[in-house]
Structure formats: C-alpha cells, structure tokens
C-alpha cells in the first residue's frame, strides 16, 4: 500500500507534466523541438524551438560532472576506508555530509564569483560547459563519496581477512577485493548522483552561460534543459509554458531511460560473478 503510494507519486508527476505539455503536443510542436535550429520562443518575427542543443547540454554537463566526480569520490572513499585513521575518518565524513547540504545557490554563487573568472582568464567568457561541469561535480561529489564509503564499509570483513591472510597489499585488496565487492553499491551511488546532476538547476543556471547551441569545446557556453525552465517559466506566455512543460517531460523520460538502462546494464554485469 505504501509502496503503491510511492509509485503513484511518479504517475501523478508524469501525468501532470503531460497535462501541462498537452497544448504544445496538440499544436504539433514536437517536430519543431527536434528540428528547429535556434531557441528563440519570444521572438515575434521568427519564433524557433530547438530542444536538441539543450538536451545535449544536459547530457554533456552531467557526463562531465560524473567523469570529474566519480574517480575523485571513489578514490576519496577508498582513502577514507583503508588509509585514514578512524578519528580523522569521522571528520572527513562529517565534512562531506556538510558539503552535501550546501545549498545549490551557494555553489552557483561561488562558481560565478570564483571559478568563472579563473576560466575566463584561460578562455573567455568563462561561463561555460566546463564551469557548469566543475560546479556540478562538486555538488555530486559528496553523494558519490558517501555512498561509496558505505558500500566499502559493507564489504565483508571475512574477505578482507582472507586477503590479508594471503599476504595481499592494500592496493591489491582495494582493487581486486573491495572495489569489485562494493561495485553495485558504488554504481547505484553514481547513478543517484547522475540523476541529481541532470536535475540540478539553480547552480547551473549561474555558471553555464545559457546559450542554446551545441558547444564546440568545453569553454563554450551551454544551456541545459533545467536552466531553460528556470530562466523562462516565470515569464512564459501560455504556449511557451506548454513547451517548457514538454521539455521537462522529455528530460524526465530521457533521464529515466538513461538511469534505467545504466541500472539494467549494472544488474546484468552483476550476474556474471
């Protein structure tokens, strides 16, 4: 019953998005989302509604963030579990939990005032795919590190003992025993983080530059779907609003499919051993 309640929340949200997007679907905007070249819904002369660059931006920003954060987070968790003395480990964990609770707006503000000027010196304008990726990576790092830590903690003591009894060093124990054993826990942590990264809005909108074009390099500005919703929802007229709902719906479906696919792949890989 309670499970059904949880499940029904999803249905409710999807239904609500569909209802919001319905006018746009009815008026045949879907092909325009796919095939238009620019995003200029407010233009009186030539309104265009290209969603693809924004979906691409969502995917790219998330991928970059995951690529930056996953190795760091997992390596940090290994250090936490196998190297750090317990007394210090507790503090490390406390700090990570704190980092997990920093509001996104603080990250965004920090990104815009500290990170963007740095990147600007390398390659203007600074607000870019790279900036958004780094800020997002910082935001999801604690999630990855904390879930990896708990996954590593749940590696059975008996296996670590077995490794020690066979004279295996820490490196081999970590890579051959602990990490494979914790793989599924770490994987679901990374998935959780990816889902969070795709949906993140407030921090990204401040550092990504918000230009709805396919980026040519990491220094180019991009505009993820959520940034568009955040920037325009409050100001959109009715048909524009329906389009934004449609964009949100597509994002949710794409993310759902992506995480579902990753999770499925993970499950299959898990069955081998």
């Amino acid at each position, binding site marked *: 019953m309670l499970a059904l309640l949880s499940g029904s929340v999803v249905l409710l949200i999807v239904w609500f998005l569909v209802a919001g997007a319905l006018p746009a679907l009815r008026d045949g905007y879907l092909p325009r989302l796919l095939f238009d070249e620019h995003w200029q819904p407010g233009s009186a002369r030539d309104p265009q509604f290209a969603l693809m660059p924004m979906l691409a931006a969502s995917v790219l920003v998330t991928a970059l963030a995951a690529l930056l954060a996953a190795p760091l987070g997992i390596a940090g968790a290994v250090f936490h579990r196998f190297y750090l003395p*317990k007394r210090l480990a507790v503090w490390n964990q406390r700090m990570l939990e704190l980092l997990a609770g920093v509001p996104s707006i603080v990250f965004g503000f920090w990104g815009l005032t500290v990170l963007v000027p740095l990147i600007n010196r390398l390659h203007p304008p600074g607000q870019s795919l790279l900036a958004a990726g780094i800020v997002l990576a910082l935001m999801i790092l604690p999630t990855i590190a904390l879930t990896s830590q708990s996954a590593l903690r749940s590696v*059975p003591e*008996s*296996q670590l*003992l*077995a*490794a*020690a*009894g*066979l*004279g*295996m*060093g820490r490196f*081999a124990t970590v890579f*051959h*025993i602990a990490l*494979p*054993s914790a793989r599924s826990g770490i994987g679901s942590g990374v998935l959780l983080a990816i889902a969070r990264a795709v949906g993140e809005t407030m921090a990204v909108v401040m550092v990504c530059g918000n230009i709805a074009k396919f980026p040519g390099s990491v220094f180019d500005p991009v505009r993820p779907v959520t940034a568009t919703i955040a920037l325009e929802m409050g100001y959109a007229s009715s048909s524009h609003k329906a389009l934004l709902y449609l964009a949100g719906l597509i994002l949710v479906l794409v993310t759902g499919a992506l995480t579902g696919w990753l999770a499925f792949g993970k499950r299959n890989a898990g069955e081998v*051993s």
Partner: protein
Amino acid sequence: MTSVSSCSSNTSCTCGGLSLSDVSVHYGNFAAIREVSLTIPDCQITALVGPSGCGKSSLLHAMNRLTDLIPGCRVEGSVRDGVGRELTDPSLDVMSLRRRIGMVFQKPNPFPHSIRRNFEIPLREHGVSRSDLPDLMEKSLRDVGLWEEVSSRLDESAMKLSGGQQQRLCIARALALDPEVILFDEPCSALDPLASAVVEEHIAALRGRVTVVIVTHNLAQARRLADHVGVFWMRAGAGTIVEEGPAEVVFASPSDADARYYLSGVRG
C-alpha cells in the same frame, strides 16, 4: 622468490617450524593470552585445543601478524621461524611473511569472484607470472581433491560451491602460494560432518609437506590429526598453555590437572 621447497618426506623436511617464547596478546587493557611459549615442530601437525575464549585464535593471528589489523592490539614476546628470524619485527615485510605463513579461517571465505580469479588475484599479487597460473591452480586443486569436481567450471563464481568445497578451495588457495606454514583456525567447525571429514583428510595429507597449526574444539579430530599438542586454559584472567608435548604423551598422560580433566572430557 625464496626457495621454499615442499618436502617429500619427514626426514628431509625444510619447511621450518616456529618457536614462540613468552608471547602475550593484549587488546587495549585486556590480556587475551599471557606469556605463552610453544615449539611448533617442522612439517608436523600441531593442534591447539582448549575451551573457547582462551586466546587460541589470538595466538594464531599473532603468528602471521594478522593482529596488526586490529586497532589497539599489542603483541609482546618473540615468534621465530625455522631459521631464527624474528617475526614480530616491525620492519619485516608482513605481506611476504603472510605468504610464507598462510591461514585458513573458520568460515570459508572465498572471494566472490570466479574460482580462477580466486587463485589469480593472490598469485599475481605475489608476482607469479600469468603463464604459471593454470598449472599452479590445477596442482593446488588436486591437492585438496577439488580438481575433478570443479575443473569444468573454473569460471563460475566460487560462491556457488558447497561449504566444504569452499573451505577446500580456501586451503588450495593458501597452498598455491607455496607456504612454509599454514594456520588453520577451526577449519571444520562451520561444516557438516561429511564435509568436515573430507577437509580433515586433506589437512592430514599435508603432513610432511608443510607445517600445520590447527586450532580445534573437536578433541577427536585433534587425536586423529595431531603430532604435537598444546592445551590452553585460563590462568589469572588470561589464556595460556598449560600442557604441551607430543600428541601421544599429552593425550595419554597429561601432567596438568585442568588439561587432564579437559582431555578426558570431564571439563571444558
């Protein structure tokens, strides 16, 4: 690697015993065992018996420095190998020590990988070349009588084996490293009698090839296996050895009163 050869017979054995003198193990303020002295003869089977909580496992763990892993655990005294090297020396390379002194635990603990990977991971760690792996694995599996049972499914998960098979796999995995000593920490207590008998049979077969130290609660098993016996008992709040000697002597006429009661089945 060091040329540790397996011995073909008792007389030419070079695997090396251990000699412990005044070994104490403390966990924080708690003394688990106090001032234990024990000689573990070459290539024989030494059984450590005694009631639970007397520190038998602690002593075993001290012999290959697994005690290092326990925060707050302190080992005092001296543990020397066959050529007289001090094993408690902090500068000793613990990893190669543990290779020379292997361990098999109470609960079978194969890695949750394929049977093959269970050999590959530790052997590669100790620098055995990839091309030597299949032969070593087969030899070790034959030594524990597992080869016929698993040779067709080496790439399946080790976790799918039965408990007895898993334990024999763990013995084979330890054997593959070509150790001088193998420590068995109640290797049969988590197994059913039939599996237990098979495992015991293969431990017995190790006599003359490696030095075996086995902790067991099963006195009958100790009688069947042991060449040499140490009896543990609680003295002044800590475990210690109250009787030590060749099996036939200790079982026939123990000099310590507690040991006598324990071995005769009256106490313990």
